[in-house]
């Protein structure tokens, strides 16, 4: 009675969103009327499936037998010595297909089968979500069509080939900035005409309700595993800092979900040129209310990052909410810092990270160098993917 603001606090952080997918003032289901029913069906099917031990058991089995979970928690010993902190890497780069994207896709593909759909469509930036979607479709006998910006097709040739090898159709998107934002728009347009037999497998914690919630739940396996692994490996049980890169924010959301109720500080690292959470303004794009980079007229501006997976001018609604709550903070690093971090990890630990993941590491390095991380503090960083896909980009630079 005394303080109405406590009512919003009664919702546990990173629990189920409020009605219609609200995270604070963000989220929602801003879909065109032709997609509203399809979104409702996905939400209902997900809610039922997620409460069904049979579904969860099948997913856990696929994650173990096909994707290779659980992934290890690797202490980065040499780099830790150099930085004066204790850095642990959650190794999503070791999953089948090479990034965390597979966690979400196996969940959604199983859901699509449960809903009687025969086809998956997806957008992709770096190509990792596209490859994961093509993989899950092949595994479960579904068709797959992946929308990819022409610019990304050119810089991620290897992943385009992998998708086609796996039997997926790759559709080049030649509108707008020809990157992830435009691929997402095109996938939504396509979905309107095929909702009856096709599931839209959104790749990040963006889009209309239930996607931000559902994708976070499918990714929380990262955080849940890491929580248990930290409890066993760290004297303190919980790391001081939990760090992940943020484009739309799915690996960060999954990681943070495992630590939301602890004392750990949560840090999301965005690309300097794609900092939706750090510098975005309130807006609505691709079905949700969140923070987006915009010009003075309200037009969405193009993101620019060396890491295609971070080349998105917005951020998932739950991250916007975590920012407002002060539960997580969002920082940015430059292309150069990310490339430097990738090289440093390769030479100290023998791991070539994806350029997306290298952003998270670049912040850890900068914060350690600046004394922002006290000596001996423990840092958990999600290494969201491996760097094979970025070799040609790196080759041009080095």
């Amino acid at each position, binding site marked *: 009675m005394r303080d109405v603001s406590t009512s919003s606090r009664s919702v546990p952080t990173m629990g189920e969103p409020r009605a219609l997918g609200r995270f604070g003032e963000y989220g929602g289901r801003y879909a*065109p009327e032709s997609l509203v029913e399809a979104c409702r069906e996905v939400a209902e099917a997900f809610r039922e499936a997620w409460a069904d031990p049979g579904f969860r058991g099948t997913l856990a089995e696929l994650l173990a037998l096909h994707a290779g979970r659980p992934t290890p928690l690797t202490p980065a010993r040499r780099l830790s010595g150099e930085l004066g902190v204790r850095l642990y890497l959650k190794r999503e780069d070791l999953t089948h297909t090479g990034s965390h994207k597979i966690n979400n896709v196996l969940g959604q593909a199983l859901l699509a089968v449960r809903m009687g759909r025969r086809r998956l469509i997806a957008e992709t930036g770096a190509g990792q979500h596209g490859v994961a979607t093509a993989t899950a479709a092949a595994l479960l006998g579904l068709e797959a069509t992946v929308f990819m910006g022409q610019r990304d097709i050119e810089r991620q040739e290897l992943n385009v080939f992998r998708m086609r090898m796996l039997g997926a159709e790759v559709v080049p998107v030649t509108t707008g900035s020809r990157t992830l934002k435009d691929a997402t728009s095109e996938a939504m347009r396509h979905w309107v005409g095929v909702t009856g037999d096709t599931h839209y497998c959104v790749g990040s914690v963006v889009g209309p309700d239930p996607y931000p919630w559902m994708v976070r739940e499918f990714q929380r396996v990262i955080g849940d595993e890491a929580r248990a692994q930290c409890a066993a490996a760290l004297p303190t049980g919980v790391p001081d800092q939990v760090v992940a890169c943020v484009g739309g924010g799915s690996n960060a959301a999954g990681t943070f979900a495992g630590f939301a109720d602890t004392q750990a500080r949560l840090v999301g690292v965005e690309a300097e040129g794609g900092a939706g959470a750090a510098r975005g303004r*309130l807006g*609505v794009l691709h079905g949700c209310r969140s923070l*987006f980079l915009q010009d003075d007229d309200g037009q*969405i501006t193009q993101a620019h990052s060396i890491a295609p997976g971070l080349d998105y001018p917005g951020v998932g609604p739950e991250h916007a909410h975590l920012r407002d709550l002060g539960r997580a903070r969002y920082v940015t690093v430059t292309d150069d810092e990310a490339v430097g971090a990738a090289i440093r990890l390769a030479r100290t630990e023998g791991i070539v990270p994806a350029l997306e993941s290298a952003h998270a590491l670049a912040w850890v390095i900068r914060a350690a160098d600046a004394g922002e991380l006290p000596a001996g503090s423990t840092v958990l960083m999600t290494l969201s993917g491996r760097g094979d896909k970025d070799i040609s980009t790196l080759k041009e630079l080095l």
Partner: protein
Amino acid sequence: MTNLTLTPGPVERHLRARRDTGRGLLMPYVTGGITPGWTDYLRAFAAAGADAIEVGLPFSDPTLDGVTIQQASDTALARGASTRRILADLSGLPDLGVPLVVSTYYNLVLHDGGEAFCAALRRAGVTGLIVPDLPMHEADELTDVAAAAGIELVLLASPATPEPRLAEISRRSRGFVYAVSLMGTTGERAALGASAAELTTRIRRGTDRPVLLGFGISTPDQAREAGRHADGVVVGAAVMRRVLDGAGPDDLRAFLATLRQALDQE
């Protein structure tokens, strides 16, 4: 819902009055700012017998539009089109005798704030608003804010909309009900789908508010057929393809006259 929204506004009154004379309603669309003298298209539309005119405020990411309107939006934005400039152009127009209805994506409304956005529309002589990515369940606040500013917020109904929701949309929509003829994006199509007639029939069961069919209506034959089911048609991509191909106001006036004639024959 407040009482403000219960009385029909000028858009609905105008469309009802025209419909009640037995006339098939025609609402052509133009992307604001598409050419330097773009408001001349509006005069041509009115002269060709439009019953309302839809003006699109171009958005960088038109997720419900097909290639033609996407191209038109990009072209207008490249010319420096913005909400402010387009509304300034509209303010300079004499009364065309038909309501002006603005359509745009919700980000542009949120950017200015619903109240300021609707007030600016009203000052520019606009009385209707269509926001295709603001579905009914998210629209309550803007419906009220718009009504207070004298703007009728039109809701869209789709072939996929289930029954109780469809009645709710028909009830809450202002001005008219925008019936999306097919499951797809905007753009010209070879034929009018069966879903158009079915949807219109379903909407009519719940309301006597004017129903306009849009999406894919591109030819006089399609307009005639649509006019048999609905109170009228919205024609966007077929207009904008001609504009993008260089057609001037007189060309568009001639094209719309063929649609007018087709609707009048019904």
